[in-house]
């Protein structure tokens, strides 16, 4: 079907240019200029881009396949913790307690040696593998159990929320070995670069931008592939798709796991930029917010989740500074408004605009005229 608007490569180019605005305004525009972007704001935008990746990941399962996850923050946080563990191990003897191996919080808890599951995280390739494998495996097992039992709709949403809540409670416990409610923080460097330097931060920002473009390329390819259409079919009538001979469990499990891996990668790039990962990332509220970004931007669209993530989080940054007590009301109100007035989100507004090729009688007039014509033939 032909959709109004930009072609797919043009969309990627547009997002790519938008991503490049930050380094351009930061480095090429002189400091005196009104358009200069201060160094301290670079990680803030990096955070938004990581959120945009997370929103694209959620839209793959929610917008396309109709699986509303209210626990996607869990996969984001698992990726974030895996990266956080690498960053903790990089601190080495520079911690407050100057222990050569143990992170500060373990020394504080009187632990004598490193728990086995912290082994290997001192090496970046291992940590990166865990960033992919931990959220991916968790999602695969969870999805396999849920989809095989044909749990769907609101029941699935509730158990995804339960998953992230259970993980939050677990990560809050000190004896889990992930820093309890303080989480992991006080990072020093990443791959040998000082983590707080302006250059490193710009580098991390750009890496997140590349991840966003990759995520969008994956989303675009998926939508155009036969699998993308099968997912729409599963969303709108899974038994029927099954009856056509399609293995719907396999298709759902694939996109679900893929989405969790993207979320985990986003979390891994988020952590070094914000400088901390703690169990609040697992809170159900954090996961529900992701769904709101996607709903505001526009479900099952390419740009919608990116737009939604930027707008809602930009608003959040501004409002939690200007009038913090109002934020939750605004967030809730936004969700209600979008649900009632803009079911296709902000991107949907574009589709409401008049199109050159649309028939004058409106969409309903054309097919209604056909039965008579068919009868004549």
């Amino acid at each position: 079907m032909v959709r109004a608007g930009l072609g797919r490569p043009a969309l990627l180019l547009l997002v790519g240019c938008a991503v490049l605005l930050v380094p351009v305004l930061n480095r090429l525009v002189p400091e005196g200029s009104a358009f200069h972007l201060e160094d301290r704001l670079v990680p803030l935008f990096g955070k938004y881009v990581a959120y945009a990746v997370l929103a694209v990941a959620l839209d793959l399962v929610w917008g396309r396949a109709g699986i509303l996850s209210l626990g996607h923050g869990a996969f984001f946080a698992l990726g974030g913790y895996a990266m956080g563990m690498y960053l903790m191990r990089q601190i080495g003897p520079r911690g407050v307690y100057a222990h050569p191996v143990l992170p500060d919080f373990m020394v504080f808890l009187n632990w004598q040696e490193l728990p086995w599951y912290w082994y290997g995280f001192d090496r970046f390739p291992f940590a990166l593998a865990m960033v992919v494998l931990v959220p991916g495996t968790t999602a695969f097992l969870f999805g396999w159990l849920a989809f095989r039992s044909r749990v769907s709709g609101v029941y699935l949403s509730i158990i995804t929320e339960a998953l992230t809540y259970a993980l939050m409670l677990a990560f809050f416990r000190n004896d889990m070995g992930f820093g309890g409610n303080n989480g992991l923080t006080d990072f020093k460097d990443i791959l040998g670069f000082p983590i707080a330097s302006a250059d490193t931060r710009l580098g991390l920002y750009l890496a997140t931008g590349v991840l966003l473009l990759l995520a969008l390329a994956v989303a675009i390819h998926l939508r155009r592939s036969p699998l993308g259409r099968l997912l729409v079919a599963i969303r709108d009538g899974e038994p029927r798709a099954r009856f056509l001979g399609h293995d719907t469990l396999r298709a759902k499990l694939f996109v679900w796991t893929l989405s969790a891996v993207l979320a985990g990668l986003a979390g891994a790039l988020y952590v070094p930029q914000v400088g901390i990962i703690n169990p609040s990332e697992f809170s159900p509220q954090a996961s529900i917010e992701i769904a709101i970004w996607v709903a505001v931007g526009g479900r099952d669209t390419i740009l919608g989740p990116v737009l939604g993530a930027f707008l809602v989080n930009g608003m959040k940054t501004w409002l939690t500074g200007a009038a913090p007590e109002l934020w939750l009301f605004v967030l809730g109100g936004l969700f209600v408004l979008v649900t009632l007035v803009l079911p296709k989100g902000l991107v949907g507004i574009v589709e409401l605009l008049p199109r050159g090729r649309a028939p004058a009688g409106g969409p309903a007039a054309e097919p209604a005229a056909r039965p008579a014509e068919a009868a004549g033939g």
Partner: protein
Amino acid sequence: MAETPRTLPGGRLLEPQILLYLDGVTVSFDGFKALDSLSLVLEEGELRTIIGPNGAGKTTMMDVITGKTRPDSGTVLFQGGIDLLSLDETAIARLGIGRKFQKPTVFDRLTVGENLELATQGGWSLARLLAGRLDAAAEERIERTLETVGLAELRAEEAGRLSHGQRQWLEIGMLLVQEPRLVLLDEPVAGMSDAETAKTAELILRLVGRHTLVVVEHDMHFVRELGAKVTVLHEGRVLAEGPVDAVQSDPAVVEVYLGRS
């Protein structure tokens, strides 16, 4: 059932022109016999209409053939001797038995063409679904099907924008594109205008010879238009069988259809 004597090895019992063979099929729900020792034989390439009052067992019979319902007893053989009762729904569908349900269930958000493509891609591997393009043979099958069901010009139209009749034809198309040996159509003209009904009759008659067809229908006018051999079901049994005229003048049939008023 394991002890049924008719499932001979190699299926040599059945004559080669017989595509579907039902014998002594009984299905009961809580003591109510939806099918009561039903027997039916279909020949390859045949068009058969099945009529009967509500509750006569028409839909249950389709359910048994497609594996949705397991009978309490009886034999169901396909194509020379394949025991359908030992197979599940997916396996039966892959044997080449396609069924159109009463309610059209095309995918509204996909185009006519995409609906048909999806119907040809059942059983594709994940890698093929991700990277795959249709092969030339499937593409040709889709084009031929679009012509057959009269939707060639609407290939790029979203299915949600089709009329009721067009949606039914698309659904029939989604069956045909899988090239089934046996096509089961459950009330294909329910809710259609007279013009659409006439066009559907033409469509079905065009399919005779290419596929074996079973049409379950209430609409006697439509059944007359098809002019095929008719089986009348009543209380889970075959009440009468033969040409439309003979069946319609059969006193037992008249009794069932009109006698009770």
